[in-house]
């Protein structure tokens, strides 16, 4: 897939009801009713959306070790546009065409303003993310989310089945069933089947 050739659909959609975009025992991402959605198209197919509205991310970036739990959950109310790539079909039925009033509620005077912000986010993601550094991206299943953060960078969450990668400015978290790695500015914790290894601050690079 050559993501540099992606396009944003002319249509602007909105959520007819609260939608759970992704949910596992580790995390959940929900968007509220009225959230605007701009479809991301590739070869005339919907591959994802840029959402803008009241949305929520909960993610337990906690590693359980035999000496106690390490890490804190992420609880993020998202008011800025964020990007999702992945299964678009299941949520499609909960979306309908947005009108001018829906755009105004979200703070936009017209569709062009939303398109411009969505394009800016997509350009940042597809340009800066190493996933697509060479314009290719071998993603077939699962989800990728990218959220702008306070440091004006993108937090990225990649999920497929029980596999999870979360990369933010203050932590990197990888998990799969009994295995987990958490890297924070202070330490790195590696846990596997109840056993764990902790590397403290001076070792972190």
């Amino acid at each position, binding site marked *: 897939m050559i993501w540099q050739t992606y396009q944003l659909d002319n249509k602007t959609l909105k959520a007819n009801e609260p939608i759970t975009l992704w949910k596992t*025992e580790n995390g959940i991402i929900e968007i509220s009713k009225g959230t605007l959605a701009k479809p991301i198209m590739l070869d005339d197919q919907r591959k994802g959306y840029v959402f803008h509205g009241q949305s929520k991310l909960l993610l337990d970036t906690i590693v359980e070790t035999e000496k106690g739990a390490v890490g804190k959950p992420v609880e993020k109310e998202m008011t800025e546009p964020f990007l999702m790539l992945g299964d678009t079909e299941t949520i499609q039925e909960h979306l309908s065409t947005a009108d001018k009033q829906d755009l105004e509620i979200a703070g936009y005077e017209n569709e062009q303003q939303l398109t411009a912000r969505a394009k800016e986010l997509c350009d940042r993601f597809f340009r800066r993310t190493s*996933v697509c550094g060479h314009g290719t991206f071998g993603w077939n299943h699962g989800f990728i989310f990218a959220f702008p953060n306070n440091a004006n960078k993108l937090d990225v969450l990649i999920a497929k089945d029980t596999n999870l990668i979360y990369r933010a400015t203050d932590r990197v978290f990888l998990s799969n069933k009994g295995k987990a790695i958490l890297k924070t500015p202070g330490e790195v914790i590696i846990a596997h089947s109840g056993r764990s290894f902790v590397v403290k601050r001076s070792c972190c690079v």
Partner: protein
Amino acid sequence: MSEDIKEEMKRLREEIASLKEQLGNVTEMEQRRRHGIYIDVGERMRDYMGDVMESVAEGIHGELDKCVFIGPRGVRIIREKGEPYKDEEETETNFPKAAEVMSALGQEHRLRILRELVRGGKYANELQEKLSEITASTLSSHLKVLEGAGLVVQEKVRGRYLITMPGRTAYNMATRITRIIERGNQE
């Protein structure tokens, strides 16, 4: 006719080679699945994951190089030069935080909650069952105090309560001090 057979043999050989290659790929993927976290998100992401793991490994190696010497006569732990070992009593203590932690520990019910969590993560209703002498609202407020002090953490998605590393250390410290004092009183 023999030309046809030769052609057919050649085609079959090519097909076998192709199948072997595919089988090799599948085996390699399967092995990688068995040996760790594996997500098929393309070469670039694998490179990124590799970078993260490499930086973790380098950190561990670097630290071990600094402080562990493995020689013919065994293993020696070396302390870094210029950073003499500081006794716990010499290091600066954040007294307000220490008081908060001690205050969180200074309640019988909260110690009982910690004991339950030492045995494994639990939902509020499981804790309620184990500690039936505490009402639901009191349990909830105790958990908030423990969470505020950093001794307990609650998962946001599943809602389970887990004891943290400091929580476990604090609980062990409290029980150890109690045992020492009790032993002293008996003597």
